[in-house]
Every structure is written in structure tokens, then in C-alpha cells.
């Protein structure tokens, strides 16, 4: 039981990161690589806030969300907007500029916090809950709850609200949306902002479950990508499913086969899913238009 909760908690972290990627992917068809770096910085800020500045849990949460928002916003204006607003668009050059921004954020974090992992004693989140066969941190339940809440919330928002539909319309055809009176640049900024807040919150949630470290980003990026590939790119539900399956394979794989095989098992799962379901579980149906 406690192992299952741990597995789902880790999976939920991956799911949250994948959700942040999906929010941007859905409106702009981009992978904002830098997102992983934002989460790493947010967790380092959470560490500093809790252990050095003596902030409480709620102010820290707020601080992380704002930090995620601000860093992602700046990153959008510096590395995404100048590349996408230029006509004609040069292929997928944004991949290069967002990877560049990722590297900058990670290197910046290393300069400030160093490259060693750091951990903090966190009120409430670090408390243990006894589950009969072992104990897990409260943070694990918080992670699972946040991932479920974010998934359900985003799913409903995209499907039911006017704004959510505007986001989907922009994703489908930005030029047509612009002609219909939709400020597509604002939609892009807003989706980066939502993703930034999600990344900031994810940063705080990660802290009690692992350690905070400057290069946490690249680890999370790859897991989030795998979660998206498994669940289907752009699928909100798929992100949760994908994140949880990675968490389960990692945790139980480490338990039964050996911890050193953990990343290899996830890799094998990715290859297997792509071979059987190349579009992912909730991926878009076969295109009809030719």
C-alpha cells in the first residue's frame, strides 16, 4: 500500500510537469523545453524560502507560483516571441531557442544554488502517515491530489468554458482565430502563464519527495515527455495516465528487479507503447483530411 502511494506520488509529479507542457503544446504546438528548468528553480526557491528565509508553507506556495509565472513569462518574451512572431517562420527554430533558454535557466540556478542537491525540513508536508505496511509523507498525498485536481480542472476548463474553447480554436488555426477577433498572442502568453504557475507549484511539491537540485529539470523533462508520449500529446487525461504509469514502473521495477534498471525499464515501456500505440493512449484519432 505504501509502495503504491509512493509510486503514484512520483507519477503525479511527472504528470504535473507533463500537464505544464501540454498546456503550452495545446495552444502553440510547441514544447517549451525551458519548463523543466522553471520547476527546478521553483523547487530551489522553495528550499531557500523554507529553510533559509523561514517562510511558512502557504507563503512559499504563493512565492513558487509567482516565481514560475514570472520566469516563464520572461522566458516567453525573450526566447519564444521573437522567434515565432517573425515571418516567414523558419521551421521549428523555437526548439533551439527554448532549449537555449532551458540551458540558461539551469546554468543560472547552478550559479546561485550550486550543483549539489539540497533538502529542507518542511512543516506538514514532511509529516508521516502510517499505512499499515509502511509510512509515507503527507506530501505524497498532496502530490496525488494536486495532479488529479489539475487534470480534472484543466479538462473541464478546455471542454466547457468559453475561454477554454478559444484556447482550442487558437491551437487548431491561429491565423483563422486572429481573423475571428481572438488575440492569439495573448492566448499564447496566457498559456505560458498557466504553465508557469503549474511549474511553480510542481516545484514545491517535488521538494519533499526528492531533493531540490539545479539539474532536476532535465530529469523531469524527459519523464514528462515520456508521460506525454504514453498518454498522447496534448491530452490532459493522458498526462496523468502517462505520469502514473512511469511512477508505477519505476517504483515496482526498482523493488522487484533492481534500482539500477529503473531508467531502462521506463525506456522499454516507452518503446513498447510507441510500437503498439504510436499516437499514445488518448492521442488524436486517425486524421481524415488528405
Amino acid at each position: 500500500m505504501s509502495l503504491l502511494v509512493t509510486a503514484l506520488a512520483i507519477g503525479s509529479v511527472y504528470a504535473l510537469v507533463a500537464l505544464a507542457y501540454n498546456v503550452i503544446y495545446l495552444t502553440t504546438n510547441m514544447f517549451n523545453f525551458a519548463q523543466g528548468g522553471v520547476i527546478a528553480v521553483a523547487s530551489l526557491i522553495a528550499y531557500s524560502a523554507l529553510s533559509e528565509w523561514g517562510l511558512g508553507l502557504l507563503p512559499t506556495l504563493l512565492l513558487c507560483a509567482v516565481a514560475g509565472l514570472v520566469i516563464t513569462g520572461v522566458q516567453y518574451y525573450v526566447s519564444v516571441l521573437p522567434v515565432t512572431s517573425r515571418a516567414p517562420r523558419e521551421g521549428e527554430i523555437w526548439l533551439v531557442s527554448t532549449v537555449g533558454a532551458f540551458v540558461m535557466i539551469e546554468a543560472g540556478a547552478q550559479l546561485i544554488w550550486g550543483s549539489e542537491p539540497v533538502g529542507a525540513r518542511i512543516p506538514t508536508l514532511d509529516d508521516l502517515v502510517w499505512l499499515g505496511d509502511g509510512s509515507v509523507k503527507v506530501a505524497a498525498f498532496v502530490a496525488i491530489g494536486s495532479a488529479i485536481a489539475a487534470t480534472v480542472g484543466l479538462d473541464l476548463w478546455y471542454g466547457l468554458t468559453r475561454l477554454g474553447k478559444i484556447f482550442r480554436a487558437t491551437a487548431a488555426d491561429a491565423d483563422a482565430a486572429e481573423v475571428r477577433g481572438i488575440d492569439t498572442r495573448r492566448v499564447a502568453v496566457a498559456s505560458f502563464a498557466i504553465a508557469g504557475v503549474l511549474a511553480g507549484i510542481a516545484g514545491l511539491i517535488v521538494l519533499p519527495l526528492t531533493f531540490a537540485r539545479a539539474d532536476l529539470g532535465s530529469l523531469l523533462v524527459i519523464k514528462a515527455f515520456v508521460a506525454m508520449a504514453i498518454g498522447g500529446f496534448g491530452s490532459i487525461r493522458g498526462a496523468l495516465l502517462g505520469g502514473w504509469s512511469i511512477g508505477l514502473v519505476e517504483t515496482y521495477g526498482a523493488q522487484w528487479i533492481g534500482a539500477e534498471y529503473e531508467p531502462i525499464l521506463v525506456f522499454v515501456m516507452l518503446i513498447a507503447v510507441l510500437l503498439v500505440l504510436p499516437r499514445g493512449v488518448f492521442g488524436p484519432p486517425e486524421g481524415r483530411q488528405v
Partner: protein
Amino acid sequence: MTAEPLLRVRGLTAGYGEIQAVHDVDIEVRAGEIVTVLGGNGAGKTTLLGSVAGLVDVFAGEILLGDRPIGGLRPHVRARRGLALVQENKRVFRALSVRDNLVVATPRLAKAEFAAREQDVYELFGVLAEKRHDPAGSLSGGQQQMLAIGQALMAGPSVLMLDEPSAGLAPRLVAEVMDRVATIASRGLAVLLVEQAVHQALRVASRVYVLRLGRCAEQEGFRSADKQRLLDHIYLGAAADGGRT
């Protein structure tokens, strides 16, 4: 023709990158009019509408909506000020339902006002009402074209621009769409219609411009003119010079 022009284009030169596709074009559209722009392939019709809507770079000239210049504004701002464009190729949002397509095309409105406009579109295009919950991608080409026009109307525009609404439609549907366009104009909208379906477009037109190699001229007395001569003027001229585009 006493009404004030709702759309005025003066000395417009526009194109993509370094390529000029329309040169020094003057066009006026008044309330209640259907102004038809005819032209062969590559004459610059789509570029003309695109530059008025803000999708194409404008190098010189003036665009006035009512009496306000809209030249430097981004496309969505022009749309919100009452300029609606129905693009080529029925660019509706295929994954959204018919109704949601109308929702996203409407500015934030009171519920009653939205319902009234929606009802209006359904009255104009009855088939959309039946299919309001179907995804737009499941509609036929003609129905998608109607939805695209409906989307444009939801914003409550004063000027409606249509880029080849007949393209890819069966002849009977073309006539139906043109009739609806005439109805829309009769309510006081200024309609700028770009077409290749000459006969149908002339049937509803108030005035006609001919665009050739990016230059535009009004065609006087098109109703009485020999249509074959008009066609030759539009197409053969363009074809003879076509290699230089």
C-alpha cells in the same frame, strides 16, 4: 448611392516579404452594397483581402473602416472594430462543435444578445441549427462555408469580406450562398466579395472591380456589357502576362 462608405482603401500596395502582389489599389464599399472584385488566378485577390484584414504586409496606402484608419492594427483588433473576413478554404475549427465555433467567434456579450445573434445565423443557414452539436469537421464543404460566414456575422461586423466563397461548392450551393450574401448586404452591411464564379457573382453585385496583375479598376456598366468581353478582359489579359508574376 448616398450612404457613406464603410470601407475605404486608398493607394494600397501590399505583398509578402519583398514581393508586391497588389499595387496602388483604390476601393470603396458602402453600406448595403455588394462590391465584387473579379480577377484571374494570381491577380492578387486574396492578398488584397488579407492586407485589409491585417494578415499581409502593407507597404503603402491607407485603409479606413468608417472614418478611422486601421492600417497598423493587428488582425484581431480590426475584427473587433467590425471588419469580418471569411477566408479561403473554409477555415472553421474542425474539432469544435458548430455552436462552439460561433461561441469563439463572438466577443464577450450578454447572454440574450448572443442568443439573438446565434438565432439569426441559424435562420440564415437552417442546416447549421440542425447540426449545432456536431463537430464542424463532420460538415460537408458547403455547410462549412456557411458556418464560416456565420462565424463572421457573430462579431456583428459592419464590413464583410468574402474570399471565394464558391470555391469547391456545387453550382446549386453557390447560388444559395450568393443569395444569403445578398440578404446579409440588404441589412446594411458593406460586402466586399472576391470571386471567380463570375456569373453568380455578377448576379448579386452592386458594383464590380476587376483586379489584374495586382492593379485594380472599376468596371462601369457591367450589367449591360457583353459578358464574354468582360471575361476575356479579366482572364485572357491576365493569362497573356501571366509569366511575369
